[in-house]
């Protein structure tokens, strides 16, 4: 399922990030890699704040929808 549908507080395994573009590569350098763990901290109309590799990252809806967990 896309990250936007994930419940807050659960540790989730990243399965895939859809698309092939610069933004996807940027997400990956931030630590959103396949097999990595991501936790949703809070959600705001589809925009999410997540913890990944021990840092807190804010992502908007369009991008969060492309992260499959």
């Amino acid at each position, binding site marked *: 399922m896309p990250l936007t549908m994930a419940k807050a507080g659960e540790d989730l395994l990243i399965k895939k990030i859809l698309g092939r573009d610069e933004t996807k*590569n940027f997400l990956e350098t*931030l*630590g959103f*890699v396949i097999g990595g763990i991501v936790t949703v901290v809070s959600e705001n109309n589809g*925009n999410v704040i997540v913890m990944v*590799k*021990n840092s*807190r990252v*804010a992502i908007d809806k369009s991008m969060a929808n492309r992260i499959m967990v």
Partner: protein
Amino acid sequence: MNIKIALAGNPNSGKTTMFNELTGSSQHVGNWPGVTVEKKEGNLKGYKGVTVVDLPGIYSLSPYTLEEVVARDFLLKEQPDAIINIIDASNIERNLYLTTQLAELNIPVVAALNMMDIVEKTGIKINTEKLSKLLNCSVVETSAVKGTGLKELVSKAVEAAKTNVKNVPTLEFSKYVSDAITGIENIYNSYEYSPNSRWIAAKLFEKDKLVMENIKLPEDLKSAIMEIVEEAENKYDDDSESIITNQRYEYIEKIVKDTVVKQKRSGLSSSDKIDSVVTNKLLALPIFFAVMWLIYYVSISTIGDMTIGYVETIVGFIQVGVENLLTSAGASFWAIDLAVNGIIGSIGAIFTFVPQLMILFFFLSLLEDSGYMARVAFIMDRIFRKFGLSGKSFIPMLIGTGCSIPGIMASRTVENEKDRRMTIMLTPFVPCGAKLPVFAMFIALMFPNDAWVGPSMYLIGISAVIISGIVLKKTKLFAGDPAPFIMELPNYKMPRMKGVAIHMWEKAKSFVIKAGTVIFLSCTVLWVLQNFSATFEYLGAERVDESMLASIGGAIRWIFVPLGFGDSWAASVASITGLIAKEVVVATFASVGSVIPIEFTQVTAFAFMVFTLLAAPCFAAIGAIRNEMGNWKWTLIAIGYQTGLAYVLSFLVNTVGSFIFRGTSATERKILDISIMEEAAEGAVVNGDIVLIIFAAILFVAIGFMIYNKFSLSVKKAEAKA
């Protein structure tokens, strides 16, 4: 021998704090990613001939935003003698990603495990020795804030630079990828030799744009390489850059497992708790508006207002003192006039507003230092996206409330080129600190009883940003969706008084420098132009209409006739002198107005304010625009748009206003009474109560907007079910 050591690391890992400690500089620091957008150089304390270079933060050597390009280009093209890689130890896994890339650059790397004091508190233990062995480079524990570990770090870095012992990268890719890179390396070596061929081959595998452009491979070799890359991409069902990134992180995970002992996370951290309130669905916007209101209320209406009286007394005291001094020294009448009225009077009129601006800057730097700034971008993203900009564009505009120049520079963090240009173009619409004195003057002289005028300038500025955003997005030049919003949110922390003090000191210093150079010079020139005729005959107050200034104003005033303030030459001159610095507008009126009457009606005064608000900013800001746009074409487009919009809106204010208010007091001509100008205060610009009302109004609109969104969403859901 001259040694250059670069500070490289993730955004917000403490590079600039480290730089300030190492060089004794006072560069601006803040707690949000993207504070440093330009490289800064300084001399290393205690060493001769060693330069330290502070670079903008980067997550990797594949830049995503413009300031990252600055850092990467420096590392690759200028080849420093050594790199100090600052690692935020509380976030070691992500930070090591860059470390593994830096280790491949063929430049000695010394790693600084920074923020160790914070890490120790959270119970995480890091085996530095083992980490050093695994990474194959020196690792030093530091705390830039407390100044610990810096001596060791510096001596190791200097030694590494002198001995030039390069790190042998320990990172190994999977057999398949490694073979593919070797294949590419062989193809590349058949074309040219480089000591970096392995790294270049890996970059070619990643299809790195800059490397590809730089080495200009012949087409047939290029396609041979692409064949290898495509094969790998098909095998992994992913793009080549992602394959490398994934493997890099796998490697780092292993290192971290071996060296870092983490304690189990126990519930939410305090930053998470604060975030759950300030980025909350319902509370985020009201809290933001409340914070902004508080800042303006305190800095301008309360504390700021109290300081104004002191400044006036001091300026008056200096004026009298200088006058007595010059008189007793037997100075000529015109020299006294130049010093007392031309220079001290004009600068004094501007200086009145400095304490308030300082307090405003104090609060803005608190915002930056606490970590709230990054959240503001996130909160505003929802709104800014509605008119085609990313939330990241909000940061430049917020900084622009102090001064447009750092605001324009902050636009580098905006990813999308078109949006970045638009942000540069629109940031000057937000009234900067230098425009406040102009508004304050007109409010005191023309609108003493109309509290709405000051806030209306902010509303007009913000509306100009929003409407321009919507309209410009429809044109070819700016069309397209903004880049998706991705931003690291740093941990909240108590603002460091040192950082805040540095910020305020820098502002005060830059203002004093500005007053002492540009403004001083232009006041002098203005006075000369105003008091001498074209044949350099001293005219004095009575024959000011024959002065050079009057001829210049007379020649250009027809431009401003449609705007309502073209009938006197003084206002025309003032709108041009504003290009030097917006404060000079006030100086011009003060200087000319003390000699001859300058007439305005309330309508034309308002038109003049709107024109000043939106028209081309000062030369310094235009320079910043030119710098960030990179060419004159876009600079001229930006300035043309700003001035064009200013002209049109100002024309509308004058025409419509004159029609609606014909026959009322608003169209009555009034002489600007310069003598009461010293009473002008920014308290008049932003009257406390009216600010409260306006913020309440915005708040209601925001809440209404949210309820409407909720409602339409549930209607859609119901429809979908049906």
